[in-house]
Each structure stands twice: as structure tokens, then as C-alpha cells.
């Protein structure tokens, strides 16, 4: 299943200028793996830690959240706090 994922624009330089990419993924874990595979320059960014927002719900670290083609998906920088 292909899903579209929005990247933060600072990652354009690592995706050939794209801010929105399409990858094969049915879960957040598959999404991150697919991004690292299809856009290898994103791998260190993903390894450093990212979060994923699915329809506005921010998934801080779970790799098992299901994804569907109609979900609005955003890659975000990893959340932490004080």
C-alpha cells in the first residue's frame, strides 16, 4: 500500500527537492524503513530520531501504528521535553 508522507522542508536537500514523497508502508515502522531505503540520505535523520503525525495525532516513537492511504502523514522531528 502506498502512502504519502509530508517532510519538513529542511529535508528537501536530502530528497532531491521533494517535500512530499510516496512510499510503500502499512505501519509507522514500515514507513521509516521505506523512507530510509528509498531516500538513503534521510537515513541518518531517521536514525537520529523522528516522530510521525497521523491525522494530527503525533506518534512519538511507536513503529506499530497502522497507516492507510487516506491518512494525512507528516514526518516530524523527535519530540521530547523538560
Amino acid at each position, binding site marked *: 500500500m502506498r502512502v504519502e508522507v509530508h517532510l519538513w*522542508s529542511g529535508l528537501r536537500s*536530502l530528497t532531491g527537492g521533494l517535500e512530499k514523497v510516496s512510499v510503500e508502508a502499512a505501519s509507522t515502522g514500515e514507513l521509516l524503513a521505506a523512507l530510509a531505503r528509498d531516500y538513503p540520505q534521510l537515513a541518518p*535523520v531517521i536514525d537520529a530520531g523522528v516522530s510521525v*503525525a497521523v491525522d494530527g495525532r503525533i506518534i512519538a516513537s511507536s513503529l506499530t501504528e497502522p497507516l492507510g492511504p487516506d491518512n494525512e502523514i507528516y514526518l516530524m522531528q523527535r519530540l521530547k521535553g*523538560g
Partner: protein
Amino acid sequence: MALDDHKTTGFKFIGTRPDRPDGLDKVTGRALFGADAQAPGMLHGAIVRSPHAHARILRIDTTAAEALEGVKAVVTRADFATGLSGEFGFVLENVMAGDRALYDGHAVAAVAASSALIARDAAKLVQVDYEILPHVTDVDAAMVDDAPVLNDTYADATVPAGLHPNVVRYHESGHGDVEAGFAAADLIVEDSFKTEATHQGYIEPHACLATLGADGKGELWCTTQGHWIAQKTCAALVGIDTSQLRVTASEIGGGFGGKTTVFIEPVALALSRKANRPVKIVMNRSEVFRATGPTSSTSMDVKIGMMKDGTITAAQGVFRLQGGAFPGAPMEFSAMCAFAPYNLENVKQVGYDVISNRPKQAAYRAPGAPMASFAVESVIDDLCKQLGLDPIDTRLKNAAREGTKASYGPRFQRIGLVETLEAAKAHPHYTAPLKPGQGRGVSCGFWFNHGGETSVSLALSEDGTCQISVGTPDIGGSRASMALMAAEVLGIAYENFRVTVADTATLGYNDVSHGSRVTYASGLATIKAAQDAVAKLCKRAAAKWGIPEDAVYWEDGFAKPSGANAGNFDPIPLAEITKDMGSTGGPISGHFEATPEGAGVSFGTHIVDAEVDPETGKTAVVRYTVIQDAGKAIHPTYVEGQFQGGAAQGIGWALNEEYVYGEDGRLQNSIFLDYRVPVASDLPMIDTVIVEVPNPGHPYGVRGVGETGIVPPLAAIANAVSAAAGVRLRHLPMSPPRILRALRAQASEG
């Protein structure tokens, strides 16, 4: 989580204000903090610190120190693990320097001796030969072409080509076309701002007691916001298996994000291993300031375009944060939070993480957000003034709502910003008359909040009382909140619970008490653990009645048959079931482990009145009101305390607190006498309004409240002070000298 798990009204215990469970211990001095631990044969540790901002370490001679009577061990970097990378590598470099001292106060060696006095004397005998290197402590100066290079390998793949090697991370996000948006504006305000580094200012200095044997088994007692991360980090830094180190969190005297990492703990463990004795280290205040994490200092540019009716047409911000000598300044949060309160068609935010010769920054409540909010909300205030608009109406006009595309990308779920603004507008404070020399400021603020790995265990006793083990150190009243949530599920009184912060050997992994996550995540886990216990209680009642388990339900502390078909049985109270639990199937407990991912974001709106003395530049905050969305206030008194604490710390940050570095790169004000935090006489009574817009990701609607409260104060106070002084203040803190300079500059400009 199934919707039928949710409950947002009709509470019996939630929302009440019972006595705090740690109250007696704290007022009688019985509570055990980091420095209160003792052990037979205990040694005392002292750290040798660099007096230089940047220097190559040529040689460390420990001979004289080791020869001093009473000295049992001296450690340097050679006594720690090698080959660490990533954050562990940065933390190791920070807790014990390698080949270079990177800031004034950087640890370079440590001593353990039979008394604290001997340890301090021995530390002075450690001879360190330095080659002094050029240094830089200012964020803008660290980015210019000829700035001293701290490390040319830290920059990650996101940093655009051509920037100075001290720029180690880069963030850019937004949507729309800001140039088109600015072209559509009736008025554009563009301005630049700076904020100085501040410290979290917790009362309790870092302290620990460590034991580590030659067998690789260790014990650590420390003041921390997260003992599992302390366990994991310390084990890596001293090169032992994680599970062989048991860490117990002491009572904590404040953290605010500053105790989410380790500083002295790995050093104490390394000393203990070398001396084969327990080692205690307690920082003095100067060490806390010089060597633990303050906030980033910042330099920011913000540009906003607005139409005459108050509609924002475009917004753009550049946020430069220095985070000390290592990557990690929270510039992405500055960028993502800056414009989050507003529904913007065209927005762009850029962040730079810059390294400098200062201590490694640490989180401080909503890291990165307060500074960005200061810059953005100051510009909005200027726009409102120039266009003759009401500041709250203007914010309402542009406010983010459910479904709004956030400035950082995704659409908001249910949020409560509008409710906080409407409550602010309706509050008597907003329309109260001001006296001459006074000004009023308002500001909104946003923070994400967090879930994180969480484990909770709950055990019932034969007498019908209950013990709850959580793994999140209680930094904001969580023991009371957990007891209230469990009481709501089990239907027995709050007083029947005892909540304990368990050590790392007795509970599953728990993320740090940070990100305003504890009441949300540990609370959710406590509710689920209590529901697990309730299911077992119902099963025992079903067995007693000889009916199916699903024919029993739980209400107000009783097992009850679910209807006439289930049978005509008298309800059984909890204590009646637990009385015989050993002989009816064994102990009854409940457990829950998960990484909850439904932490709801939160917003706040603050109103501040300030008075400025134009002769001295001294500012008095004369009235303050905090309005914030808590989702659901479990224990309202603690929620109000969090709101008030955020405002109090914000007042210090806005008006007086700052790290002052000399030309030599050394910290000039490393004690509370010279680093001025607000005291009670500096503060007005801080009024609070709790807004409750339930978070759909928590069974009772909870949103974290620990961090959002420090986001609006800097801007709200700056807007009030600027109104009172008649001049825009662009540099925090707005200390009397800075206010006088601004007044004189305005006078000289005519």
C-alpha cells in the same frame, strides 16, 4: 483505546483537592533527597573542573592528589568506556573531558577521599597542563566566518553547505508562500530579538551515592527526573550491563528538565569501582551553574504581515540557538512552536543549532518554545498597536482550532486555544484600569506534550488498601494524581492508596518525567492497571456467586451482578474480596505497560500588568493571570501550582536571570547572589483559570500541564514592560540596565 473507556464528567474523586501524600515528609524534613543518602565506608567525591573556556588538555598529573592521606581514588577520562557514539558519546564528553576542555567548569578529573574536605583539597592538587585555545560564547559570534571552531565533525546532513562548522543542525518548515502573503499585508513588522541563557534554578543541587564492584554490579541513588535513563546512560559510560545497575530515584527538589540527564553519577560510579567503596558526590551551587545544563541563549528574527482587520497574511521566523559545546539546542522546537497558536496560510520557520564554549544545554520546561514565543508575540503586539487592534480579538481572529493546519505541518485534533482566549477576554483582569506607569501585555503559548514508555504496577492488600508502583519521579504532584485516578476506577477512597516511585529493578522501563507526560502517561497506565485489577476482582466475585465473569460489573468499590438474569446477590465490597484473596486464587494486582501515543497538545494565554520605574529601570509585575487548557485537572491545586510555577520562572527569565560570561569566557555569576531568581517578594499573587477541553487520547481527557505555562510569560511580560516603558524591549532579561539603555536610546533618537 476504545471510546467506551473515556469518561469526562461525573467523577467522584477526579477534580478534588485532597492532601498531598508527600506533605508530612517534606515539612518535617523526613523526605530523603539526593544528598541524604549514607552508606558504611562511604567516600566523598570532588570534581576537578577547567578554569578555561576552551583549552587542550596536555597532561593530567594526579600524583600529588593520590599521595594525600585519605585519598582513595582519582579518575580521569581513561577510567570510562571507549567507543561510545551519539548522545552517549556527547554525555561522556560532557561529564569527563577527553583531550579538550570545552567550557569553564568542564570536568577533567575527579577524586574520592574519606571526607568531603580532603576530596576538595585533593582536587586542588591534581595538576592539569592546558594549552588555551580561542573561545566563543555568543550565538551570533559563533556563526561568523572567523569564529573559533569547536568541532568540525558534529554537523549533520541537514546543515546547508557554506555555514560555519559550529552550526551543527538545521531545521526549516512551513507551508504556503510567505512572499505572496507579505505582499498582501497592509502592515509588515520585522524585528530582531535576543534572549540570554537561564538555568532551571532547582533548589536541590545534583547529588548521588554510587556503589560499583569489580563484579560489574552497581547501586545508584540520585536525584533525577528519570532513573531508567540514568541507568542506561551510566551503564554505558562505565561499561557495564544495564540490568546490573540498580538505580533508585531520591525525592527530588526540582528539575524542570535539568535533571533529565546525568552529570556526576557516572563519575561517582567510576570512583567507586576504583576505590571499591561507596562514593557520594554533591554539587555546590557554583558547580550547578557552571557545569549543568542551562537553556540555550538565542538570537531571533521575526517578520509578520497583517491586514487592517487583524488577519495575519504571512509569518516568518529565524531562530538561532546555542546549546553549549554539543549538538542538541532545541531550535526545532523554537521553530515548530513559534507560530503554532495561529491559523496561517503562509508560514516559514528556520532553526540553527549552534555550538559554543558553554555548558551542554539541558531541557527547561517546553525547551525552545518560550524564547520563540517572546519574539513572535512581541511582533504581534507591535502590529496590534500600530493598527489599533485589540490584542486578544486579534489572536482570536487568527487562532488555531480543531482541523487547522499547524504551522509545523499536521492538522490539530481537538484543542483549547480559543477557550483560553475567550476566558482571558472575560477575565476581570483584562479590563481592570491601569495606573500611570503601568502597562498590560498578553501572549499565547503552545507546547506539544509527550507520552513515552510507561509501566505501572498496582497491588491490593488484604485489608482492601492499595499500593501503586510508578516509575516516574514525582516532580509535580503525580503521586496524588495517580491515587486519584486509581480511586476513580476502584471506587475506594484516596486515603486507601500509597504511591511509590519504584526503582529500576522492580518495575518495567519508564521514560523520564519530562514532556509534561506523567499525569498523562503514568495516569493512563494507572487507570489501565486499576482496570486490570477490577477485572480480577470481578472474576473472584463471579466465582463466589457461581456465575459467568461477564455477568459481574464494578461500581463504587463493589462487585455487583449485572442484572436480574445474573442472579440476586448482595454486592461485595473490595475489602471483602481481598480479605480472602490468598485462598481464592492468590494475590490480586494490576499491571500495564505501554508507550501511550495520544498526548494532546496544549495552549495557554497569559495576561500581565507591569510597572516600570523610569529612573532606575526596575520593573514590578503587579498583576498576573494564567489561563491554560489542562484537558482535565485531576488535582486542581497541583495544576494551579504548575501554572503559577511557570509564571514565576517566566518572570525570572524575563526580568533578571541570565548567564553572564566575561571576555575570558568564564561565567561571572555562578551563585544565587549574582544570578537573581525571583523571590516571593518579587511576585504578585498569580491568578489561574483552568480551561478543560478534553484530550481524546486519555481516558479522562488529561493534557500535560507542566510546560505550556512557561511559554507565554516572556512575551506577555515583555509586552507589558514595553507598554509601561513606552519602548519596545527586544533583549531578555529586561534587567534595569537594559531598560535604562532602551529608554535613553529612545530619548536620544527624539
